[in-house]
């Protein structure tokens, strides 16, 4: 097998892994959009916020330490304890649910019935607000994120040696795949299955789908819109936490993590804003597409770094032919 082909396979596999993570972020968008028609730009910042909160709780940081020190002239930084990962994750989930409640209570309850584009801009405002709060709360420096079940059993890092050796003996060239990516893909797949099961087989899931279908009709059969929206924002917060853990474990928790939202947008455009399968398929197409384009065309001919815009261009071209995306509902417009 020629070397070039093996490299291409490696790039393809890496693209697939990246695509799974994009899909994971896109899922958070789809959940909220389906249930409330809100296009949540803040999803990426929610991932950042969740990851920062997780690290902060793990390390026993005092929230708003910088601000407190600046105002009162004190010098507090840490409580002096560290929290087990599982407890920290559970606490972070509590924080995200509280956030979902606050967002629903203080922002979107007042914006019911507004045009979608106004809601979208409100989420941009929310993104700025959350980013500022996250930085004030936990400090803006780069933090390492380690999620460990017990001593030594952490999320794996580094190259998968087994795959490398097997392919090396078979083809003479190793295939490089990050262990973390494999774990992330498995977890993402499990999460997706879990979400679909939740939506299909539970009472709340059914209510969620009813709300997504028709607010008025759902209200009239006794579904509480308020509850469903808080539930959906909490779920999106949970998805954001998972995405934040994966990306944070890979490249540290820092501001750039919130930019994964920008990666998820073309995924959504491609897959359609309302479709869970669309988010997954779109994520895989974008992940594989941008890695292959970078490898085959971008790096040799265009000077590299095409990953920043390729996904958008692909989605844009695609939309011109199918404006509602791959799996989106047909847009019917009447006067």
């Amino acid at each position, binding site marked *: 097998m020629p070397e070039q082909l093996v490299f291409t396979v490696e790039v393809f596999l890496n693209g697939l892994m990246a695509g799974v993570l994009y899909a994971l972020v896109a899922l958070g968008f789809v959940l909220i959009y389906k249930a409330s028609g809100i296009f949540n730009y803040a999803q990426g910042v929610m991932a950042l916020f969740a990851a920062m909160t997780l690290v902060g709780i793990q390390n026993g940081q005092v929230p708003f330490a910088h601000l407190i020190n600046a105002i009162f002239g004190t010098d507090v930084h840490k409580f002096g304890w560290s929290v087990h990962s599982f407890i920290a994750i559970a606490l972070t989930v509590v924080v995200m649910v509280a956030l979902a409640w606050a967002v629903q209570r203080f922002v979107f309850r007042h914006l019911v019935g507004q045009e979608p584009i106004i809601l*979208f801009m409100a989420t941009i405002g929310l993104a700025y607000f959350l980013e500022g709060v996250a930085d004030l709360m936990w400090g803006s420096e780069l933090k390492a994120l380690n999620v460990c079940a017990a001593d030594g059993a952490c999320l794996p890092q580094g190259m998968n040696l087994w795959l490398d050796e097997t392919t090396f003996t078979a083809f003479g060239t190793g295939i490089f795949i990050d262990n973390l990516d494999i774990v992330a893909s498995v977890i993402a797949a499990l999460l997706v299955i879990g979400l679909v099961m939740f939506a299909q087989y539970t009472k709340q899931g059914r209510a969620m789908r009813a709300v997504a279908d028709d607010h008025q009709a759902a209200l009239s059969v006794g579904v509480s819109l308020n509850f469903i929206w808080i539930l959906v924002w909490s779920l999106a917060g949970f998805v954001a936490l998972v995405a934040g853990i994966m990306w944070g474990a890979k490249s540290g928790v820092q501001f750039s993590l919130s930019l994964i939202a920008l990666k998820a947008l073309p995924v959504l455009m491609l897959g359609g804003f309302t479709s869970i399968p669309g988010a997954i398929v779109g994520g895989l197409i974008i992940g594989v597409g941008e890695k292959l384009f970078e490898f085959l065309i971008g790096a040799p001919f265009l000077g590299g770094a095409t990953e920043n815009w390729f996904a958008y261009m692909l989605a844009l071209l695609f939309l011109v032919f199918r404006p509602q995306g791959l799996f989106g509902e047909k847009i019917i417009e009447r006067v």
Partner: protein
Amino acid sequence: MFYREAGDFSTTYAEDQQTFPIKFDRWRYYVVLFIAIVVVPFFINDYWANSLLLPFLIYAIAAIGLNILVGYCGQVSLGTGGFMAVGAYACYKFMTGVDIWWGGELLFRLPEFNIFFSVIMGGVMTALVGVLFGLPSLRIKGFYLAVATLAAQFFLVWLFNRVSWFYNYSASGQINAPERDLLGVLITGPSTEPWATYLFCLFFTIVSAVIARNLTRGASGRKWMAIRDMDIAAEIIGVNPLRAKLTAFAVSSFFIGISGALFFAVYLGAVEVGEAFGITKSFLVLFMIIIGGLGSIFGSFAGAAFLVLLPVLLKVVGVDWLGWPTDIVAHLQLVIVGLLIIVFLIAEPHGIAQLWRVAKEKLRLWPFPH
């Protein structure tokens, strides 16, 4: 007491249709213009010019441009930063002489343009690019379009980073404004006078505002607003949606391009594209028009003034008076801006401009509100 229209009669159609039908309003604007043009240049210094007035004027042009697209035509765009970059780089190329190469040979080389025409060419080139990226707007609507304009943002920034022709093959990848003058007065370069740069930007701001105001209350403005309110209905009553949308994109990009050119050439002097024209710039200008007021020229000015003043104010209060570290103040600024966006969207979706309108109405009726 002064703000009244009693005894203020219009006797011709022209008088009836003027921008400021109330005499007091008109004179007030003349006074503001007089102060801005004649008085301020005598008292301006470097601090005032660089930290307040220049950014205010330049962002006001960008906000007017974006307001035409978002506020009047209803096409949400997140590509403002990219379009400003087009203006800046086009201005730079025309300032230093556009050279076209083919196969290693110089095909032809335009002479260097005067800075005034370079800025205008920056606007013209941006209008062309804007139309190109506006083409999908006929098929793509709403969010999809908002996200699609991000394609323009990322692609343009990448292009100006990678293709060294745009920055004249300089080693740093930056573009630096060379010294250029207008009628013997230095406008760009390190040794300019604050009053010269101020007047230069002020000229463009006033002209942009007048053009935008008259476009938006004329036939094309009506068409844009019809498209914004309901595009299919507009199509049925005879508005050509493609034409209306593309002219909105062109006019809007023209203003944004001019502001980008001024931002680079007059205000900053040297620019690295990813830093100066990144996505944060797109959001900043979008916030200006949300806070200032969608679909209002005055709102563009108010929003620009607000978001230029806010960081300065926060810095003065937080860093200079209270002695807080700068990073806390920067984060606090994010919180405040985000909160303001949400509060404005909930409480007053038409922004500062609407508050101003309400205040004017109250003043007109004062002291007998019923």
